[in-house]
């Protein structure tokens, strides 16, 4: 090819930041970096020193979720860490991380107080220390451990089971009724959340959990149990119909794209939501507008 100068890697020079960048993680200064070199950032203390060590469950763009223990090794707890982002200016990084993690904690604390089904907040540090002495490693938040599957997994299991099981019409209807009941419970849980003056900001079937109940019938996939809302990383305190409607719209879209089989059943979500609190009808009215509007915007220039 006649074209020559191509940057496959950016220039890693920090000379112009020599006054502001106090501590640079050593790994970003390596000139070569392969996938094998990757490891999640060091845990903030005291979690770098607990037995058993926390196990990494999921890694999102913003946060890492670990399972650990609280107070004594028999009490499990969920640990959410927002590692510092080395690409950001340290002052900006701290400002954002602190604002976001305290926002999440405030929402959780408020919801627990209002009796909404969410994991309880156990501990928080918005200036967690990193691997090295005094290093800024990010912020962390510890929550009650919720046993069970997320609704996405429960529905996937159910869909797979429905495909395999040969059911007559009556049995199929009975099964669908169970999903409808679940959808209504989800709607009611979201209604309780909105009633408390909090919007979730990222409702998907992965952010709703089913706390299982003991059932004798092991033939069926568990769809019973309490619905617990999790991951309040994008939550905010709002009582506006617009925000509530967007919450519902996002969940509707998520159900339609991840659970095509359950899409027709999602109406029950609205049914469950409608009766859950006084402001629900006006939020649902706004939802109709939001559905029409969608997200698509024609762009200028």
């Amino acid at each position: 090819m006649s074209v020559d100068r191509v940057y496959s890697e950016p220039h890693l020079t920090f000379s112009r930041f020599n006054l502001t960048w106090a501590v640079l993680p050593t790994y970003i200064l390596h000139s070569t970096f392969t996938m094998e070199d990757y490891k999640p950032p060091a845990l903030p203390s005291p979690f770098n020193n607990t037995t058993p060590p926390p196990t990494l469950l999921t890694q999102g763009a913003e946060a890492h979720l670990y399972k650990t223990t609280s107070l004594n090794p028999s009490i499990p707890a969920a640990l959410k860490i927002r590692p510092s982002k080395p690409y950001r200016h340290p002052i900006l990084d701290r400002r954002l991380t602190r604002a976001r993690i305290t926002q999440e904690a405030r929402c959780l604390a408020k919801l627990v107080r209002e009796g909404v089904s969410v994991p309880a907040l156990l501990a928080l540090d918005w200036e967690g220390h990193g691997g090295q002495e005094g290093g800024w490693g990010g912020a962390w938040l510890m929550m009650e451990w919720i046993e069970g599957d997320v609704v996405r997994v429960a529905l996937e299991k159910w869909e797979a089971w429905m495909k395999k099981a040969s059911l007559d019409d009556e049995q199929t209807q009975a099964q669908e009724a169970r999903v409808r009941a679940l959808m209504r419970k989800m709607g009611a849980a979201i209604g309780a959340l909105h009633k408390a003056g909090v919007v979730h900001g990222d409702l998907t079937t992965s952010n709703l959990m089913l706390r299982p109940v003991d059932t004798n019938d092991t033939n069926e996939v568990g769809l019973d149990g309490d619905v617990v809302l999790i991951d309040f990383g994008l939550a905010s305190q709002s009582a506006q119909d617009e925000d509530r409607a967007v919450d519902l719209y996002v969940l509707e879209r998520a159900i339609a794209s991840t659970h095509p089989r359950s899409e027709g059943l999602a109406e029950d979500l609205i049914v469950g939501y409608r009766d859950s609190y006084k402001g629900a009808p006006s939020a649902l009215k706004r939802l109709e507008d939001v559905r029409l509007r969608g997200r698509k915007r024609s762009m200028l220039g």
Partner: protein
Amino acid sequence: MIAIGMEGSANKLGIGIMQHPKDGSPPQVLANIRHTYVSPPGEGFLPKDTARHHRSWVVKLVKQALKEARVSVDDVDCICFTKGPGMGAPLQSVVVAARMLSLLWGKELVGVNHCVGHIEMGRLITGATNPVVLYVSGGNTQVIAYSSQRYRIFGETLDMAVGNCLDRFARTLHISNDPAPGYNIEQLAKQGKQLVDLPYVVKGMDCSFSGILAAIDGLAKEWGLGGEEKAKEDEEKSSQIAAASESLEDKPTRADLCFSLQETVFSMLVEITERAMAHVGSKQVLIVGGVGSNERLQEMMGIMARDRGGSVYATDERFCIDNGIMIAQAGMLAYGTGFRTPLSESTCTQRFRTDEVFVKWRD
């Protein structure tokens, strides 16, 4: 197969000639020339002046490109032009020229989406196969990923483009528009040390810049840093400024404002790109568009990609900033699948979303 690409959606007029060899070897750039309409400091480029510039330069540039590429008119297979999005008057000037050449030489026309042009050129130059694309320029800010024959927009700006935000702040500070306001902000920002608090507006995978511009314009006014006189002062004692800002830690300098603006808006861009990467499970990022030639943005994106175990692909100003070869490249890919733009449909449009294009050439 040889194509001429004609681009003029903003203040850059670009003519490029690309060749896709018949034996299937990598495409070659035969000519890539550009002429930019530069407005005086403190002013943006107006559509009518920019259109006039394009009209008066387009013939010269096409002639020069053919000469540089050492091809004759007979060798050319098709004429590709920018259909949109962009500013109306400049787009129209170039589409008229493309139509004229098509009739004069008897060549077929291919209308190209400007954003798809950027993406295809970026993919060709860097060799990134299936990256998450951050397209950042004076008119567009989008996070894009390919999925089933469309370039889908995952996140975008809710108001103005990031390049527009930078350009307009350059106007406030009366920074030169030559070669580009963004480039001059980048140079000034290198002297900045103090981070000024600015709004930080990210909503999911979307972002917004107008509030940041209003805030920093307000700060510039408050500290008396805007306007022509300050810009002159800067030029006169540019050497003393670095020393002065160190002693006066409290009051930010013009450089500090540029530095803070860049740090804030680029952090937002990297964050939404990271979200999109986590969402689609991709490890490659490709940065295209004029703002993509900013080395600080490339550096920040590089650190983010590294932390995710991936890599960043970026190009320099020849391919990042609007050019003719990207239109030729994307046009030829479409042309290869049988796509043609009949003369009667050879219009341009200011609004043309990236996801409206059916990407037949990828699977």
